[in-house]
């Protein structure tokens, strides 16, 4: 019973994906969690998706991950963002019922007979000749395992701050995990401190709804998972209100007791998700800040005050929040707090998320310095998958920056210096036009299916979509509309035509969509929207996509220039000292990767390239795992 293929430390969003993917590959999995019933808990805001993050969830799903299915079952407010913009920047987002979400996650975990949930705390790692052999557990002693995926979130030496009070905790009301960081430091790992925060929760019956704006969910909610047919759950509203100068004055009174401003918190917080005190300090001229009031569930009294993350003293939080329209009588159920935690700078990992120092040890999620459930889940999936593949002696799995947001995420993590928690943005993806939320299946599902992570029915859906795309391209696009048909359908919005014209040509008019054209020509029989969109996109934005493809070709060329594993950077005298140190630390596997390392200059790259070409015959080529 005490002998596993893979042990996963932590049952958060990364841990769940790591457990599910390795279980799907038939391995014996131990999921170690401090409390069984906290698995899948959303510790910060009760929402999944959002810009760029929604793309991540779709990609996770296309590779057989769990997150999309869980939110489809637990979502209570679905919204497709940026619908007024192009497909490449639209993203799904959904508020979740926090309890339902955790329950659904636990249900999925328990559906795999080869996952054992072990309620315990990992305090030590066991190593034999550079390879992981097991874990030391606080209650159950030693656990033998071939691989470990560490997904400890904010629990490693977590400290919670509210005003001048601080206590050791991984999350409100939960113990931190200790010992593990120290045992990793002993092995030579480097760690750092980061900080994140969460806002207060208020009672939903204490809100004056007449004074706040209503934000309605989509009428026709779009599921995250390619296997979900439709969203059946009832949908509820969210709300918007604003802070004002009075709020800001009160918050300022608490600055001398702020753990941030008084230097009690050493860790660096994210600039894109700042605390309210940070916002009013940095943007002093802004007279108001937007707040989203997000219900945490159908039967949950808590309302999450999104935008009001704070670690100011409790009395200040309470007084300040009562100055906000609609919240005058607000009852605080829980105070906002900041949490400081250990992370391991991810330049200690390779693309599979295995550590460079210890074989078969993988890191995923917030301990790699990321923020966000989706970023964590994506890493959990990749780490778990690679751990499983390695045990099965199969080649590792990596995604390129041109293939997926997941590829961008991991590549950025292991190559760049991160001074704040890393969050995904669409602008981080240089090939954004191709990485759409709606084509994650086209990009990744074949890979998922080949790995055995996608069920047959879902795969069949993809084949159907692909067939339809071919059919539309070959049969529908050359089809012509007569001037009569055209005028009947589009007299209001498009200039008439004098000769019959093909749908393909007419599609170049920005005001016309493929679906409308197909309907006008009587061609629309049984095609799904996803297939139509795919074709429309390729035709309408041909020029831009071509230019994007040029950039990708350039990118791929550099990726194919492999750097041998036995290269001795210290022998290359012309490299700058900084570049040499970075290259020795990161050990890039291609010239392309080297070019993305923080601090490597174009001059360094030329020197490196010259050295490589010169020593072509003397160095052992690297085995490629892709």
């Amino acid at each position, binding site marked *: 019973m005490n002998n596993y293929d893979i042990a996963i430390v932590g049952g958060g969003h990364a841990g769940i994906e790591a457990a599910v993917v390795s279980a799907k590959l038939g391995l014996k999995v131990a999921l170690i969690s401090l409390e069984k019933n906290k698995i899948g808990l959303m510790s910060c805001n009760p929402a999944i998706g959002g810009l760029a993050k929604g793309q991540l969830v779709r990609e996770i799903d296309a590779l057989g991950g769990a997150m999309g299915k869980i939110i489809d079952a637990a979502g209570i407010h679905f919204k497709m963002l940026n619908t007024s913009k192009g497909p490449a920047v639209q993203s799904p987002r959904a508020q979740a019922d926090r309890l339902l979400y955790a329950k659904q996650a636990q249900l999925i975990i328990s559906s795999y007979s080869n996952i054992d949930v072990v309620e315990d705390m990992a305090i030590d790692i066991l190593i034999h000749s550079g390879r992981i052999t097991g874990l030391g557990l606080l209650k159950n002693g030693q656990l033998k395992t071939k691989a470990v995926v560490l997904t400890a979130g904010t629990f490693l030496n977590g400290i919670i701050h509210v005003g001048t009070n601080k206590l050791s905790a991984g999350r409100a009301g939960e113990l931190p995990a200790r010992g593990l960081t120290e045992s990793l430091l002993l092995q030579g790992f480097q760690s750092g401190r980061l900080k994140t925060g969460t806002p207060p929760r208020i009672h939903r019956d204490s809100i004056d709804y007449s004074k706040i704006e209503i934000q309605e969910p989509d009428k026709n909610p779009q599921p995250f998972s390619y296997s979900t047919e439709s969203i059946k759950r009832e949908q509820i509203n969210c709300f918007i209100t604003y802070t004002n100068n009075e709020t800001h004055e009160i918050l300022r009174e608490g600055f001398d007791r702020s753990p941030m401003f008084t230097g009690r918190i050493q860790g660096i917080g994210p*600039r*894109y998700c700042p605390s309210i005190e940070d916002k009013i300090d940095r943007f002093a001229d802004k007279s108001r*800040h937007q707040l989203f009031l997000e219900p945490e569930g159908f039967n949950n009294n808590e309302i999450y005050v999104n935008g009001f993350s704070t670690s100011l003293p409790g009395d200040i939080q309470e007084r300040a929040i009562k100055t906000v329209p609609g919240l005058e009588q607000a009852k605080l159920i829980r105070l906002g707090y900041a949490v400081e935690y250990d992370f391991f700078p991810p330049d200690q990992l390779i693309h599979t998320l295995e550590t460079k120092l210890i074989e078969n040890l993988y890191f995923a999620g917030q301990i790699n310095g990321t923020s966000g459930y989706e970023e964590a889940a994506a890493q959990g999936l990749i780490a778990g998958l690679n751990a499983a593949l390695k045990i099965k002696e199969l080649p590792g799995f990596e995604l390129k920056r041109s293939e997926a947001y997941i590829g961008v995420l991991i590549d950025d993590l292991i190559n760049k210096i991160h001074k704040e928690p890393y969050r995904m943005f*669409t602008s981080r993806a240089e090939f*954004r036009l191709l990485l759409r939320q709606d084509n994650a299946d086209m990009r990744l599902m074949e890979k998922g299916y080949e790995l055995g992570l996608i069920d047959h029915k879902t795969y069949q859906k993809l084949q159907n979509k692909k067939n339809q795309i071919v059919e539309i391209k070959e049969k529908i696009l050359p089809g012509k509309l007569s001037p009569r048909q055209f005028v009947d359908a589009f007299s209001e919005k498009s200039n008439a035509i004098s000769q019959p014209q093909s749908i393909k040509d007419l599609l170049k008019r920005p005001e016309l969509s493929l679906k409308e054209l197909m309907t006008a020509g009587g061609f629309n029989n049984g095609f799904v929207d996803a297939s139509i969109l795919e074709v429309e996109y390729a035709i309408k934005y041909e020029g831009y996509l071509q230019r994007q493809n040029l950039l990708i070709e350039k990118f791929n060329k550099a990726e194919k220039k492999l750097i041998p594993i036995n290269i001795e950077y210290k022998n290359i005298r012309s490299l700058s000292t900084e570049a040499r140190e970075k290259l020795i630390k990161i050990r890039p596997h291609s010239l392309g990767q080297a070019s993305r390392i923080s601090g490597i200059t174009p001059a360094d790259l030329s020197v490196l390239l010259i050295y490589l070409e010169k020593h072509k015959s003397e160095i052992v080529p690297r085995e490629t795992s892709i």
Partner: protein
Amino acid sequence: MFSEDTIISTITPVRGGSVCLLRVSGKDAINITCKYFKSNSLSNMEGGRFYFGKFVDDKNEVVDEVIIYVFKKPKSYTGEDVIEISCHSNIFILEEIINLYLNNNCRIAEPGEFTKRAFLNNKIDLVQAEAVADLIASKSKASVKNSLNLLEGKLSKLINSLKKNLIDVGSLLELELDFSEEDLEIISRDKFFDIMESSISIVNSLLDSYDSGRELQKGIEILIAGKPNVGKSSLMNSLLQKDRVIVSHIAGTTRDLIHEDIVMDDTLVRLIDTAGIRFTSDEIEAEGVTRAKKFLETASLILLMIDLSSEIDNDDLDILNSLVHKKSNSLIIVGNKSDKEANIKTEEYLSKLEIDKIKISAKEETNISELKRLIIRRIKRNEKDLSEDIILTNKRQYDVLNRLKKILNDNLKSFKSNQGFEFIAVDLRLAIETLSEITGEISTDDILNNIFSNFCIGK
């Protein structure tokens, strides 16, 4: 990074000699050369040999008589197929030849690139190579410093501000795309237009300055133009004060461009005497005529000579008409043969033109010093213009900016047609990347950092 494309560059100084050497290296070096090099002795280009012949352009018009050295790989400096062309050291000839190669998928060699290739192809050893690597780095620094000194840092500043403008636009686009849920001030499209339009106008003015920049590099060129036998060679001799040009009264004596460098009031000036511009049946002369016409377009200053003693004719008008679009400060009409009786019609015609004019007699050398003063005033005026602007002198920078111009114009078009920001962002990145070829690198981090420092983000 190192592609096997074909590169070309001069390998001897362009100025200060009668012959200049060009090197072409890469897989198409021989193919392209065969297309333009005509020689009787050339049936099959053999390595290690040289060939004499004519270099012609796409219209089969002779550019220059040259000697071509053929080096087949690996027996060459770079280890690739190499052609070296020994041609006359004239900037026009050089540019013409280089442009013919550039039109055939060849590109200008980066500094040190021949040596870099030599190393990559095992032609030189490691010690040399590391020295080269250092050299490559130091060379670019030196050239940056060079430009800084030359331009008092103005160009770098301008390029950086251009880049900053584009990063700002990029940030606004990304902000709109990545943070549209947030409560942000709405960004006006007018602001995009303003920034894009001002960027394009900066690029345009830089490109425009390239001609003046070339002047700075190669000196000021004064072209003496006019129909045959109007007295161009005599004028040149008067200006030079020596018998340099063969003068005869038979039209068409000066069959080619003849040039002389003189110093006028501390400025180096190149006087160029053209073949008379007129229709001719003589093939060799026709070539000179074509070239003279072309140089009318590029010269800093043109002295257009008209014979005051005979009636103005179609040949005169042809030249005049082809010059009216020139900036007025680059043209002076020189009425010659003031020693003879003036033709009334010609005088009348000229008096109507709003162009600076002077009457001289090249033969009698009357009014020559007045003409010199006029020329000097013009040169000074042009120089003053130059000192107020930022001047582009580097061909590579010019090429990069030319590409940038096209990308920016596409970008503006996309804006105007209300294209989605994510599409515009692709071209904008392309633009920033292109600009970075001049100044260094940028990453997506630049854009995000810019966003974070300027906007309040975060729910």
